[in-house]
């Protein structure tokens, strides 16, 4: 954030742990790495059986 705040040790550790966990999860390779992300979120369009 832009607010010039001194972060405490606990906050720094939380931020580090959060980012590390997220990045570990995101880097798990998925089957089709060339898939496009969802441009807009509409869960129903994935419901192939309903089409």
């Amino acid at each position, binding site marked *: *954030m*832009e*607010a010039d*705040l001194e*972060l*405490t040790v*606990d*906050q720094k550790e*939380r*931020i580090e742990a*959060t*980012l590390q*966990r*997220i*990045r*570990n*999860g*995101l880097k*798990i390779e*998925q089957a089709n790495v060339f*898939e*496009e*992300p*969802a441009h807009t*979120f*509409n*869960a*129903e369009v*994935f*419901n*192939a*059986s*309903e089409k």
Partner: protein
Amino acid sequence: MHQKSESLAQQVASLESSATTPIALAERSLQRASQCVELNAFASLSEPVVMAQAKEATLRRQAGRPLSPIDGVPIAVKDNYLTKDYPTTACSEALPLEPRGVDATVVANLRAAGAIILGKTNMHEWAYGATNNTSNIGPTRNPHNLDHITGGSSGGSGAAVAAGIVSAALGSDTGGSVRIPSSACGIYGFKPSYGRASRHGVLPLSWSLDAPGPMTTNLEDMAYLLPYFFGADEKDASTFGARPFQACSNAQAPKLIKLTGAGLERANEVDKAVNAALLTSGMLCSEWDLNDVDSYFSAWETILHCEASAYHKHLFQKNPSGFSSVTRAHLEAGTRLTGVELLEAQKLRSRLLDVLLNVLPEWDALVLPTLPVVAPKQGDDWQEFGGKKVSTQDSMTWFCWMGNLAGLPCITLPVGQSDSGLPIGLMLMGRPNQDEKLLDIATKFERFMLHPALNKK
């Protein structure tokens, strides 16, 4: 302190037969709230505000002109819904303690139907956590055992319903915040499909994950309340294609799939209660080992922190000391994620939907425990289950985040209790926008669970 109140349906019947009045219901709620102050369930509760609404509702009833069946029923509202006569603070120091003079769409719908907006319930600050221990007015306490947490972030709403102060309350759900306290407090909670219920006037945490939802003492009452949540709202673009609520009772022999696998571990006593409920219900249920749960969870967390940081950027800049230390750390983490990482998370979101809806064998509802553990003790920072040691915060969202990432309708219902007497909840997740069918499946599931002979007819 746990006390099952009359259900909303019972209150409606009593009002219709003139066995009670809105004034009597409001007085009873206020009296019960004053007996339960230890729960710390309310952020704002004003007797004059409540009684003014109750008097108007009573006059309408006496004149034979109720606005709807729920005219005169008291309902508690989480403190992140805008309400014209109460302040809306999200239990944060960053917001002013003055009413904004406007209602969230769901509150406005309920008020137009004559419901009495009883008060604003305690919540985890900004809904940015699932324990309800971080709040500017202090933690809520579980009516089943005051030494235990309610879970959150709609913990005050959960406590108010479980203690019999109200028959129904409003919550909001970004990673389980309706379902978590509902399960921990032994009540029922419903998270609608994304885009089905208006979020307008509910202070956002993460706008593509958030959903408002009701919390009640039984399933029947959901059908009274969901019509005030569902349908298109010109003030919320996500609802433009939303259908109004239309009750459904034709779910025949629904197929259930119980999800398991790494990242979906649960305590033995919880698994035992869920399996017993499934077995007793006699409903068809297979099992599916879901892969890559950790990566989908990371996608949820990425979207959550990025959207929350973007939403709070200006207020944080203006009033940083108004945010708690942990919330500040979350917001800071969100700003350090890159645009590419956010898009990778969105890609994983699409993949989870594809896996759940198209790769799994045909299903009508997915089954998980709502929580992997029963309500933790106040002050316990860690939970151990299934060979894992997990922070209490993460244990609360352990299963629930998936429904938000995929935008699916979800419902939690109580199915048992631990040896220590704490409630255990079971979660059913439905297909997108099949909220009514999910409610029908849950109703049948509970009926068969309680009366197995009915499923053999």
